[in-house]
């Protein structure tokens, strides 16, 4: 791993990006501070990247937007890993007809364009979450603004996570099938343990490593889909921001203020680039035998 320069480079870029978005952002200006007298300001000591159409500090907005983008990537991955592991291991462990049916379902879903499903699911979930928010604010007296902000981010976690587990479940299944044949499982069977116990205590822990490694490759995918949805106006909405939102806003003022598009785009692409290299490197280093499709 340490020998792979690209993967290590990717790793360090990610570390920097994380600390920028999650640590430095707290010491930044308020990303939603509107100042109409100072819009489209060029970069200066006060505003490193200048300001946008409403006079908001672009640097702060990029960092805060990064929080949302990265969180969507990570949480959606967590959701899909959870589903993928359960589904894939049941399928692989059960074998036979159950396995065949379960894998047919995965094949079928895989044949449908991901974005089509995500858009439909996202539309439905965001309506639900609007209702849920109202309910929470009324019954639990949560801060209205804070809950309101979650309203349009949380559905994204699930819209992506609930559909992103398909390839993962195949990889888990393949792993489970090979582990199933190993001696220690045979020993567990001989000891008379129940199937559920063998699956959850003996098989799944051994599958976890390779699966997590592979899932690093799905993070950039989710970040990309978040940006696509936000760009189309179906994902994150203001006052929240994400890299997709910033790119979308930047595209409106392209003719005069290219940096509003370029800078968020640069942060976005750099992160994706590094995550891809890191994921590839990890996979090669740990030799995860995965279907590379």
């Amino acid at each position: 791993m340490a020998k792979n320069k690209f993967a290590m480079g990717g790793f360090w870029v990610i570390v920097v990006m994380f600390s920028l978005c999650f640590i430095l952002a707290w010491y930044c200006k308020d990303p939603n501070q509107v100042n109409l007298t100072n819009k489209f300001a060029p970069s200066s000591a006060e505003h490193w990247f200048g300001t946008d159409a409403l006079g908001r500090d672009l640097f702060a907005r990029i960092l805060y937007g990064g929080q949302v983008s990265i969180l969507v990537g990570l949480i959606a991955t967590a959701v899909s890993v959870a589903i993928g592991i359960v589904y894939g291991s049941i399928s692989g462990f059960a074998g036979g007809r159950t396995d065949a049916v379960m894998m047919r379902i995965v094949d079928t879903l895989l044949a449908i364009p991901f974005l089509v499903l995500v858009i439909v699911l996202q539309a439905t979930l965001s309506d639900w979450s609007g209702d849920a928010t109202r309910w929470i604010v009324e019954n639990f007296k949560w801060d209205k603004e804070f809950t309101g902000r979650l309203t349009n981010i949380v559905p994204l976690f699930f819209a992506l996570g609930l559909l992103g587990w398909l390839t993962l479940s195949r990889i888990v299944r393949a792993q489970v099938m090979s582990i199933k044949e190993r001696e220690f499982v045979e020993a567990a069977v001989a000891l008379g343990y129940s199937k559920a116990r063998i699956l959850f205590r003996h098989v799944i822990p051994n599958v976890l490593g390779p699966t997590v490694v592979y899932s690093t490759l799905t993070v950039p995918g989710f970040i990309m889909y978040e940006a696509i949805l936000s760009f189309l106006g179906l994902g994150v909405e203001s006052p929240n921001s994400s890299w997709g939102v910033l790119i979308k806003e930047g595209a409106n003022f392209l003719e005069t203020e290219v940096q509003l598009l370029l800078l968020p785009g640069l942060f976005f692409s750099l992160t994706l680039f590094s995550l891809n290299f890191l994921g590839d490197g990890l996979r090669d280093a740990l030799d995860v035998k995965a279907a590379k499709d």
Partner: protein
Amino acid sequence: MLVLFALYTITFFLAKAMPGEPFTSEKNISAETKANIRKLYGLDKPIWEQYLAYPKNIITEGSFGISTSKGRPVLDIIKQSFPNSLILGLCALGFAIGIGVPIGIFSAVRKNSWIDWACMTVAMVGICIPSFTIGPLLQIYVAAHIPGLKVAGWGNLEDILLPSFTLGLVSAAYLARLTRGGILEVLSQDFVRTARAKGVSPVQVILKHTLRGGLLPAVAYLGPAFAALISGSFIVETIFQVPGMGQHFVNAATTRDEFLLLGLSLFFGFLIVVMNLLADLLTGLLDPRVRHKGGTN
């Protein structure tokens, strides 16, 4: 068929689960009018009846329902926008193959040289830079400076150029990587060494002996590539204002237009199935091993 059915079921129940009614935006209509409209669209029947009625109408009347936001039959909308999307998609596919495959071959032949390294880095960059960044940049730096190219719009032949290039770029990057991998694998096989030993020229080795096998992964990718093109078309059609299906789909999702959403999803599903079939057939054509295994699915 199974794919289409699954797609229909999922989309249908998700569309039904949306609490927003298609007509909630028009607030000034009386309850009576509302009931009449609901009746007209068949929304007053129980859910399972609606669920069965939709496929029945497709088969018996060839009708995909009526778009609730546009007031026009969905089939009309598809008929009108599909040619635009098809042209865009085919040109994009052309760009993807025309750029991706040669780059892939080139970097496979010069494996581990700086050319290979540069090509693969460019391909990686192509995958990571989203089309919604490249698209606007092309608009401002290319379209605005070259006379004859419009920043956005649809109608003339040259209008296709930029959108399809933007759309094809990501697939081109994937194709380049796949082609490189495929060709490298074939190059390491014995029959290539034999051919070389026979004194076949390096160009001939690539063209006659390697290409056919080496392109297999790329051909197998055509199905997924087409799905990627559909997803990409949502964005590219929005950026360049192409009156295609992608734009309608996005609008249908924002306006909760369930019939349009259903009809378009099914149509996309249908296209994917057809493309996958074509890719399978092409694979069989190129690879005798697949053909002799007996029937493809």
